[in-house]
């Protein structure tokens, strides 16, 4: 919904490590101000420490995402059937 999180940098073309650290999480979540994306990406590529920091939190994020549990097909079938019945009940009067 909102993809413009984070404050603009004081120097948009050349953010400091502190600037990048402040927006790193929102950057990794795809929620930061899109106007600063290129500058952050360039900084992460050329700054080893910030690059490692991003790599670390990306690994954490990916590891957490892998904790997602599968949903049994019969659960989804029942819920879709429930939704279908809501509509068809109305259609029937």
């Amino acid at each position, binding site marked *: *919904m*909102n993809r413009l*999180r984070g404050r603009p940098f004081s120097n948009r073309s050349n953010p400091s*490590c502190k600037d990048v*650290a402040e927006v790193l*999480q*929102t950057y990794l*979540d795809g*929620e930061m101000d899109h106007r600063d994306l290129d500058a952050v990406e360039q900084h992460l590529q050329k700054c080893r*420490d*910030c690059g*490692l*920091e991003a*790599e*670390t*939190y990306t*690994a*954490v*994020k990916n*590891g*957490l*995402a*892998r*904790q*997602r*549990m*599968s*949903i*049994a097909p019969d*659960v*989804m079938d*029942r*819920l*879709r059937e*429930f*939704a279908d019945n*809501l*509509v068809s009940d*109305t*259609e029937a009067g």
Partner: protein
Amino acid sequence: MSEDALTPAAANASPAESEAAFKKYVVPEIEVMYRVARSITRNPTDAEDLVQDTLLRAYRSIHRFDGRYPRAWLLTIMRNAQLNRVRRKRPELMRDPDVTMRRVADSSDDGQGVENQVMHNEFDASIETALNALPEKFRAIVQLVDIDDLSYQEAADVLDIPVGTVMSRLHRARKRVRTDLEAAGVTGPFGRKSQS
């Protein structure tokens, strides 16, 4: 039917328009709704009941929905439905949403057997341990954003807290997870020096 015709709040919606809007905006979100319901109830049976309750409420109010941000709309309905369900069971819990989440999380979960059979590697096992060690208010945010893949705003809608609180709790939670991983000696990018 035109796109405008699927936005029932834009006009006096006919039953056919409401039905079409329900199919367009609500049905595609059922899987996300169930994942979030699992996260906030931590019980598969309760989650299924909660989604059904949410679907029913959404169907009854689809004629008032303006067609914008259907997921946020549905998650708000789900949050209110869950609050009503918890209030009916334990009215004393409603003073503090964090307490509500924590107490709901304490309820038994008999649906973990299948998931527990899945083999994790060392890293993922450590992640799981770190996740379970988080205080509930942090775990809930991580569950919604990192695991259920909700946006900050959507997670804020579910928990009825400001987006800024979502961000701060999420960042603190990830830092705790990272610290736990480092303490567990998990290798990978954690083994190298970096600023923190």
